[in-house]
């Protein structure tokens, strides 16, 4: 058969598939089904092409992953989650603290990590405020303060119109010095943060009435993934000050946090999956949050498809590799 025949055959098969989908599925599922067909059909085509022609251009692979991620964003697939023990531990900690406790949330990340950890930061902030805890927001990254201000005004506080700045929450922002900042606040807040971001002296802020240092805080949650970040909180505040620390981390560093669990950190939220689990637990426990935006859960659709594509890539790549090796041996 010539090349033209193949194209003709392909076109016929495509028409049949399209017709079948249109007939079998309801209208709102068409997008999802087609995008799945596109991705999996593409994978089969890639396998065949790799087996016969070997060379596949890098840019085709790039295009592939773009489609695999973009399609489920346009046509969402949603799943339910079950919080794992490491995530549940953080949720329970915040849940079981008596209302009115002080929680410190540190936004130690930059835009590069934000898609992964911003959802958890938002969910945990909401949880604390809903539970009636007093929240101290801060950041060890300059870019973190900018993200913090943005998410406070655009997302977090929108659901809590009657929370008062300085009484229910306070934003003390960023200070330069990485672990140096932590080394001071573990014994003295005021020395490092004389004011909050709006230049209100700390002594005029009600939350700090009985909080002199990070040791007096009931729970610390560091959300980040770089240096300085969760690890520094454990080393410079959690361990020396004997404070409970929980961490929300970008997936890249999540495995490195496990040696600290559960003695030095009480729980770990790892990557977007951790965020999704937390969001799910939050929605489950609080009907108020039923309509809450859940970026973490939303991201699990594209995430799943992309994982499958990457796994298929590794399998296909290794098939080619072992075939090549066998041929070379012969």
């Amino acid at each position, binding site marked *: 058969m010539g090349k033209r025949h193949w194209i003709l055959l392909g076109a016929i098969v495509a028409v049949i598939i399209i017709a079948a989908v249109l007939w079998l599925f309801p209208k709102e599922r068409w997008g999802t089904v087609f995008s799945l067909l596109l991705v999996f059909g593409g994978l089969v085509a890639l396998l065949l092409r790799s087996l016969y022609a070997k060379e596949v251009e890098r840019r085709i692979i790039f295009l592939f*992953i773009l489609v695999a991620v973009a399609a489920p964003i346009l046509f969402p697939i949603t799943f339910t989650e079950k919080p*794992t023990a490491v995530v549940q531990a953080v949720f329970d900690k915040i849940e079981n603290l008596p209302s009115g406790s002080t929680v410190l949330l540190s936004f130690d990340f930059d835009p*590069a990590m934000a898609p992964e950890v911003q959802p958890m930061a938002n969910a945990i902030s909401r949880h604390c405020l809903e539970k009636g805890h007093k929240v101290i927001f801060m950041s060890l990254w300059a870019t973190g303060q900018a993200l913090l201000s943005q998410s406070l005004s655009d997302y977090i506080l929108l659901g809590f119109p009657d929370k008062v700045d300085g009484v229910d929450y306070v934003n003390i922002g960023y200070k330069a010095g990485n672990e*140096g900042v932590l080394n001071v606040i573990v014994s003295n807040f005021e020395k490092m943060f004389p004011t909050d971001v709006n230049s209100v002296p700390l002594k005029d802020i009600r939350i700090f009435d009985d909080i002199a240092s990070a040791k007096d805080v009931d729970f610390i949650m560091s959300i980040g993934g770089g240096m300085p970040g969760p690890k520094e909180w454990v080393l410079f505040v959690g361990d020396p000050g004997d404070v409970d620390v929980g961490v929300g981390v970008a997936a890249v560093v999540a495995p490195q946090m*496990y*040696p600290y669990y559960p003695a030095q950190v009480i729980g770990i939220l790892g*990557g977007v999956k951790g965020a999704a689990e937390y969001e799910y637990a939050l929605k489950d426990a609080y009907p108020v949050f039923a309509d809450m935006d859940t970026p973490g859960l939303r991201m699990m659709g594209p995430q799943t498809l992309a994982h499958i594509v990457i796994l298929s*890539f*590794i399998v296909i790549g290794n098939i080619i590799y072992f075939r090549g090796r066998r041929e070379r041996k012969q």
Partner: protein
Amino acid sequence: MFKRRIPLFILAFVGTLLIVSVFIPPMENLGEDFTLFFDIIAVFAFFLGGGNLVRIHFGKLRRRKKDWGFSIVTLVAFFFMLTIGLLKVSSVGGVWNIPLLGIGDPAAIAASPTTEGSWFQETFNYVINPLQSTMYALLAFFVASASYRAFRAKNREATLLLLAAFIILLGRTPFGMELTRWVPESFSVLQIPNMAIWIMNSPNLAGQRAILIGIGLGVVSMSLRLILGIERSYLGEDRG
């Protein structure tokens, strides 16, 4: 003397003081003060970074080096951001505030630089944010390409690594759950998501801990060498 002895002395003094202050309670305050000094000098390091940038790009511009046109982009962007940041330029609903130039509300000088409506914050939202996050998003493409072309089960070690990665990648998605839903509840550890959890909690924890202990000891011995002046590579000198 000034080039070598004094830096070595400063290093030894500060390092020793910070270590000792952990064990001697009355010295805690001193330790805090020195840490504050460090934090303030860290800001001067940012200034140094900015200064270096300006110097390098002016140099490129003067010598008309390759791609010198882009140096103009960097310089303009730098000075623009610096101006709006240091002057705290903001405009909310058409009202301008530049407190340092006496325009608008003078109390705005106390406002946070990242407050809503400040140009500094807007530039962050619409320039830094997309640029930085996209730079890292590129890596998704490279991961995909590498998984197709480079990650091979070449030997026993690489095979083991890829197998573990497989379980984690599947286990961290709902798809992994669907694959092994048929496994009875009493053998639930064999369900892929639970296997992923077990890998994280047991072998991963053990391996990471071994690495952690190794690196921790490395940091400790490095710090000690620095404080005692044995390690001088930071001075740009030969070691030993």
